[in-house]
Each structure stands twice: as structure tokens, then as C-alpha cells.
């Protein structure tokens, strides 16, 4: 017969285990009263909105010892992946602004998601106290190492005959906006083949010749470029992305001599409009990955955390420890960039919306 006792005991144990696990999420109360002293000797919950091993996770773990030393606090990295980073961002925004919950967010994706009205996306300007910028993601267009398309001119020539085929991860990500807006500036038709499981899987499609191009943050595909598996053909920026030999002769999208303005002139389109659209794209992409706290942080605590984080990020130890270069800024400067990006981003939305509609068709 049913041993009700042990089934109930099991349910009780399960509930206790789940409750114990859930307790990890309870915010601690603020003990100290002095700025930064409020977190000294405490454990800071640092939320990373992607899985262990992802780019943000690795970067955070590399910085962890430097941050712990500077803040005099323990840092417990908590991975909250899902919904394109929105779940982690929401968890940061919803926490108590006591300095004991911090985290990292990718602003371009979050900004576009919020502007596009994606359900649950927090307001990137109002929901956070921006403490510092860790870095920025500048995209390149790249072809496969054995592709006959070796330069931007080759790509534009091929693009005048047919739509260029791109491999992308998922619709809604910042790199869709980057591809669609850049294609608009260059007067190219593009087909986006979406659903590749990450940067590398999409890059393999280019290497196999299944697609023409990929568009990713240069630092995430640097090894493939250095190994000759991918060949950069365009820098989606107004200035050289990095002092890297593989980018020496690669065309720039922005700037007075950039591909956007040259193509606009060639096709009789407004150069001023092209310049404005390119600058809007660069503003959004340049808003960067940010260290943030929930909005409403005490002013003294904000200053202390912001200065300490910036000091760590700009220091030689942290710069040397990270796998990709840090492009740091103080909280105030980063916030100004986010505000500018937020003001410029609506110009991108019609193009992004059109690209997404075509993929969903």
C-alpha cells in the first residue's frame, strides 16, 4: 500500500531543498553607512546575463579578483541567462539599490529590444545606475577564407547582381540591426539566414561557403581572422577598430571617406542622410557593455562604486588579464553615451523592423 509517510517526507525535503536554493536570491540588508563601506566585507551578487563560459561570464570572472581586492568585498557571480539577456537585466533592475547587487549588461541589444517594445525589456536609461563601461563591440563584415569575395569592392560587385547572404544567430540581436542598416547605407540587398547557434557556427557557414558573409564583433572572431578562416572586408565604424594587421587595408563604413558616403554619392542619395544614419548606428553600437547597479543607488555609494570600478578596469592588471581589450569609461561618460544612443536609435528602427519582417515572412 502507499507509504504516504515517505512520499510526504519526500515532498517536504524537496520543498526544503528548493527553498534553500531560493534563499540564495534574497537580497541582504545594508549594514554599513559609509559609501563603499556599505559593501566592504560583504558579498556582492554580480549578475551575468548569460551562461557560464560565455563572453560576459569569462570577462567577469577574469576581473573578479581585481574587483574583490578593490572593493574589499566578495563577489559571487550569478549566471542568469535567457531571453537574450533580458532576464538577467531585469533581475539587476529589480534588486534593492544597496550596492550588493551589481551586474553587466549589453546595452545595444537591450536598447533596441526596449525601443522595439519587446515584452519585459527594462528601460535601459531609467532602470539602472550605470557604474562604468567595460568595453564596446565594433562589428566587421567578413567572408570565408576561401571565398572569391576578398574586398568590399568584390562584395558590392556581387551584391549588384544578387542579394548577399548572411549567417546570423537570432533575429532581434544587435548584429541584425548592424547588418540591415549597413546594407541600407551601401545600397545592398541582403538575405539573413538566422538561427545559427552562436558566432562560431555562423562563421563555419561562411567558411564552408553556405553563406557569403558574417557580421560580428571583431574581438569575438579575431582568432578565426588571424587563422585565415575569415577575411574582414568592412569595418562597421568611423575609425579603425583595432591596430591589427588584418584590418590595415579594410574599408571603413563611416567617416568622410567611408563606404557609406561614397555609395550615397555614387547612387545619388543624400550624403547628409547617410552620415546621420551611420552616426546613429555607431552611437547604438558604441553604447557598449556596462557594469550597472539597480537605479536609485545612494549618490555617495554610486560615486564610490563607479570610481572604484573604473579604477580597476583602467588599471594595468585588469587590462592585461582580459582576453579582449577593455574600452573603459566612467559611469557619467557611459551614461551620456547611452542617452545619445537612446536618442539616435529610433532612426534605426524602421530598417530593423523591415529586416525582421522579411526574415519572419
Amino acid at each position, binding site marked *: 500500500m502507499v507509504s504516504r509517510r515517505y512520499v510526504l517526507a519526500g515532498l517536504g*525535503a524537496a520543498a526544503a531543498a528548493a527553498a534553500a536554493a531560493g534563499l540564495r536570491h534574497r537580497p541582504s540588508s545594508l549594514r554599513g553607512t559609509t559609501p563603499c563601506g556599505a559593501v566592504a566585507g560583504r558579498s556582492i551578487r554580480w549578475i551575468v546575463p548569460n551562461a557560464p*563560459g560565455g563572453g560576459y561570464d569569462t570577462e567577469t570572472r*577574469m576581473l573578479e579578483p581585481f574587483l574583490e581586492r578593490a572593493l574589499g568585498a566578495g563577489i559571487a557571480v550569478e549566471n542568469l541567462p535567457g*531571453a537574450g539577456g533580458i532576464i538577467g537585466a531585469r533581475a539587476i533592475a529589480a534588486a534593492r539599490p544597496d550596492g550588493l547587487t551589481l551586474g553587466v549588461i549589453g546595452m545595444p541589444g537591450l536598447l533596441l529590444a526596449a525601443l522595439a517594445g519587446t515584452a519585459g525589456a527594462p528601460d535601459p536609461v531609467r532602470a539602472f545606475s550605470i557604474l562604468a563601461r567595460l568595453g564596446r563591440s565594433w562589428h566587421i563584415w567578413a567572408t570565408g577564407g576561401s571565398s572569391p569575395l576578398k574586398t568590399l569592392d568584390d562584395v558590392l560587385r556581387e551584391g549588384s547582381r544578387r542579394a548577399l547572404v548572411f549567417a546570423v544567430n537570432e533575429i532581434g540581436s544587435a548584429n541584425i540591426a548592424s547588418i540591415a542598416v549597413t546594407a541600407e547605407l551601401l545600397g545592398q540587398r541582403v538575405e539573413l539566414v538566422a538561427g545559427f*547557434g552562436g558566432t*562560431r557556427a555562423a562563421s563555419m557557414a561562411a567558411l564552408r561557403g553556405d553563406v557569403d558573409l558574417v557580421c560580428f564583433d571583431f574581438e569575438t572572431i579575431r582568432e*578565426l581572422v588571424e*587563422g585565415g578562416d575569415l577575411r574582414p572586408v568592412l569595418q562597421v565604424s568611423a575609425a579603425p577598430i583595432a591596430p591589427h594587421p588584418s584590418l590595415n587595408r579594410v574599408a571603413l563604413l563611416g567617416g568622410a571617406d567611408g563606404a557609406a558616403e561614397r555609395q550615397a554619392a555614387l547612387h545619388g542619395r543624400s550624403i547628409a542622410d547617410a552620415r546621420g544614419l551611420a552616426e546613429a548606428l555607431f552611437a547604438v553600437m558604441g553604447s557598449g557593455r556596462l557594469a550597472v547597479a539597480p537605479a536609485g543607488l545612494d549618490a555617495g555609494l554610486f560615486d564610490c562604486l563607479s570610481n572604484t570600478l573604473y579604477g580597476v578596469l583602467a588599471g594595468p592588471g585588469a587590462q592585461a588579464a582580459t582576453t579582449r581589450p577593455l574600452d573603459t569609461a566612467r559611469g557619467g561618460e557611459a551614461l551620456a553615451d547611452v542617452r545619445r544612443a537612446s536618442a539616435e536609435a529610433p532612426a534605426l528602427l524602421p530598417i530593423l523592423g523591415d529586416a525582421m519582417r522579411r526574415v519572419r515572412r
Partner: protein
Amino acid sequence: MMDSVAQSAWEGFRLVASWPNILYPIAGTFMAMAVAFLPGISGATLMALMIPLTLSWEPLPVVLLYGGLVGGATFMGSITAILFNVPGTGPSAATLLDGYPMAQQGRARTAIGCAAISSAGGSTIGIGVLIALVPLMRQAILAFGPPELLVLMVWGLATMAVVSRGSFTRALIAMGLGLLLAFVGRDPRTAELRFTFNTMYLWDGVGLVPVVLGLFSIAEVTNLGVAGRHTVSGRTRADQLTGSAVDGARAVLQHFGLFVRSSLIGTVVGIIPGVGGTVASFLAYGHAVQTSRDRDGFGRGDIRGVIAPEAAHDAKDGGALVPVLAFGIPGSEGTAVLMAALLLHGIVPGRALMNEQLPLVFVIIWSLFLSNWLTSIAGLLLVNPLSRLTTLRMDVLAPLIMALAAIGAFVYRQRIEDVGLAFLFGGIGYLMKKHGWPRIPLVVALLLGGGIELNLHITSQLHGLGRLDLWHRPVFMAIGLLTLASLALPFAQEIRSSLTGRRP
């Protein structure tokens, strides 16, 4: 080329075997084994936690340690699957299908012994293939694009439909339910939300781990309670248990062909980025059932149902290093963290690593080899105390299993809702078991549904754009033929048996 590979292999072996280098993979192995028994920390999380601690280390000890960490967690997850029907890792879910019934029959020692030898042997074959593939790594990976992934996954689904116990119609219905669940969440291609009922929890879909824990672990505890069984094995003393680890090892030799084929399935699946060990284990299990003349024992404690998934699961580790080392493409969470650790120490996976630092590649390979064997030896040494756990009274064990299931469900994505989902599927699993509905097709369809949908979309879009010539993709054609053969085989056996008047 082969000379330089052989020299590098020897140099790598020398580096691993020298003192005190050998201590690092051993330490990594035992840390990973300890963690595999601790609910709450996965192998990948342990590896991520080690990143800041190893920042100041030289590259060689880091490579040695991480080789041990990658290999250490693989086998141990199977022990909880055999003993308690609780898969410690996703790939161990296939092991419980026959491993747990063996424990119920008092043969836990045989099951663990068999799993240990299959794992170690499978990893050896996987690593052997990895070494043989060193000069061809890049071509091997480039051979697998979206069309090849699509047919591979369809093959997995077809195999499980055909081999499921009981009614074929019920298996198809369960599979349909699994596919429906797989489509919950964001459309992987367009990011549109589907069947999420305005809850953010469902954005990322229905998690495989809570479903498996519910369908098998919680359902089983409930079933044992209803049946009034006092212990897992039905015995209360260790001397009443039958079988031994030696019997398990002997079984691997008796079914050596199946063991080798399963190891090769695991290796090939491991090479393909993003497919993972769970697919490898279920594919090998399906292969074991499908290629056996007497299938009635599967799902009831057939040792071949332990050999196949265990060999495939561990063989996959060797294959999974191929995309990481050749292109820097991690195929799993564990290899993603491994790659991050390598990058941090200036070791850049890809062409340069393969050309200029080949001995270091072999250091990883040999560390993994050592680690896989160490875990299996530890499993064999612990076989007696572990098997005694099946004589524990259920009123002691049931709360423990429920707690393990709850923690396992929570840790998967740090979502408390997943605990509720596990218990919901516990109820569903109990009812399915009671009324003779197969649960495996549901799990396999949930596992493969997303990948099939995604690769079908990509393949059809690329084909529509004129970017694919499927007739000239030999791997696609080969796996496609295997799929057709899998579907046709049972009908062929049926026809043959009706002609000869024997049961298939």
C-alpha cells in the same frame, strides 16, 4: 605530417606523465568527481569557478588541470542514474533506462561495473579517433553543416520511434507531445514568442532536465511508494545482492561489437558542435535496441542498454575536443569554459594551435584520457558501498531522491519554476508508466525538436537561395540513408519473421 603528430603525441604524453605535472589532472579529476555527487554545482560551473583561481598559473598546469576537469564529471553522473533513477547529467538519462531496472533486480554492482568499463573503453576509442583525426580535424568539422545536423537529428528521432517499447501509436503520440513541448518559447529563427502564455519563464522553452527528472526520478519514487516497495532493489541486506563488477566488465567483452559501434557513434556526435552528449547517448541506445535480435529485455535491465549509452557518452568527450581545438568552437558548456581558460593563458584554439603547439593539444588529450580512466577505476573501487545504497529503506531514500531531483531541477537554470515543472512531470510520468505509455519518445523529441526545427529552417532557406547542393554532400546522403534504413529495418524484420514463422 604523421611523424610530427607522433612526436607531438609522445611529447604531450611525457609532459603529462612527468612529476609533478601528473598531479594536476589527478586533482582535476577528483574535484570533478566530488562535484558530480554534489547537487548544485555542474562540471561547467566548477570549471568557471576555477578561472580566477588559475589566473596567475603558467599555461601548462592550467591545461593539465582542465583536461582532468573535463573528463572527471562524465562518468559519475551515471551512478546516480543507475542507483536512484536520477540522471546526474543530461547524457546519463539514457543509462537509467536499463541501469536502474538492473539496480531494482539487485544487480547494481554489475551495472556500475559495466558502466565503468564502457565509459573508460569508450573514451579510449574516442581519444584514439581524435588522435587519428588530428591531421583531418578541420575537414571533419566542415563536413557537418545544417543539412547534416538535420538528418542526424531526424535519424535519432526515427530510431527512438521504432525502438520504443509497447504500442507504436502510443510512441508516436508521446513523440508528438515532446515536439509540441520543444516548440514552446522563442522561435529560434525569428525570436517570436510561441505558447508562452505571457510568462517570461517559458521564453526559453521547457527545460529538458526538469522534464527528465520528473518523468523518471519523481515518477519512480511515486511508483515505488504506490507499489509498497521498501528498497530500490527489493532487498534489505548487501549479501542478498547479486552480480559483480567483473560480470559487468565481462558483458562489455561479450557485446564488444556493440561497444565499439556505440563508441564511434559518440565520437562522431561529439565532433559536431552543439549536438551534445545527450543525443549521443540516446542515439547509441536506439542503435543497440534496433540492431538486437532479442529486444524484449530492453527497458527491463538489459545490460546492452547500459553499454551503449555509457560508451557513447564518454567517447563523445574526445570528439568534442575536435571543434574546440581546430576552430575554437565549443560544442558544450564544459568545452566553452575550457576554451575561455585556454584563451586567458594565451593559448588560442584554431589553426595556429594545431600547427605550432601540437604537443599542448596532446597534453589536453592525454589529461582527458587519464581522467576518464581514473573516474572509472574509482567507480569500480566504490562499487560495493555504492550498490549497498539500493538496500536502503525507501523512507530514508525517497526524501533524498526528491531533494536531489528538486535541487537538480533548480540548478539547471536557477529557476524555481523548474522545480514545479519537475513535479508536474513527475505526476505525468507516473500516469504514463502506470498506463503503459512510453516516456522515452517524449524526452527524445523534446531534446531534438528545437534542433530539427532550426536546421530544417536553415537548410530550406539555404536551399531556396541556391546555396546548397544536397546531392553533393556525402555526409548528408550517408546519414539520410542510415535514417531510411532505420525506418525500414523493423518492417524488414517483420516480413522476414512472418516468412520464417519466428518472432523478430
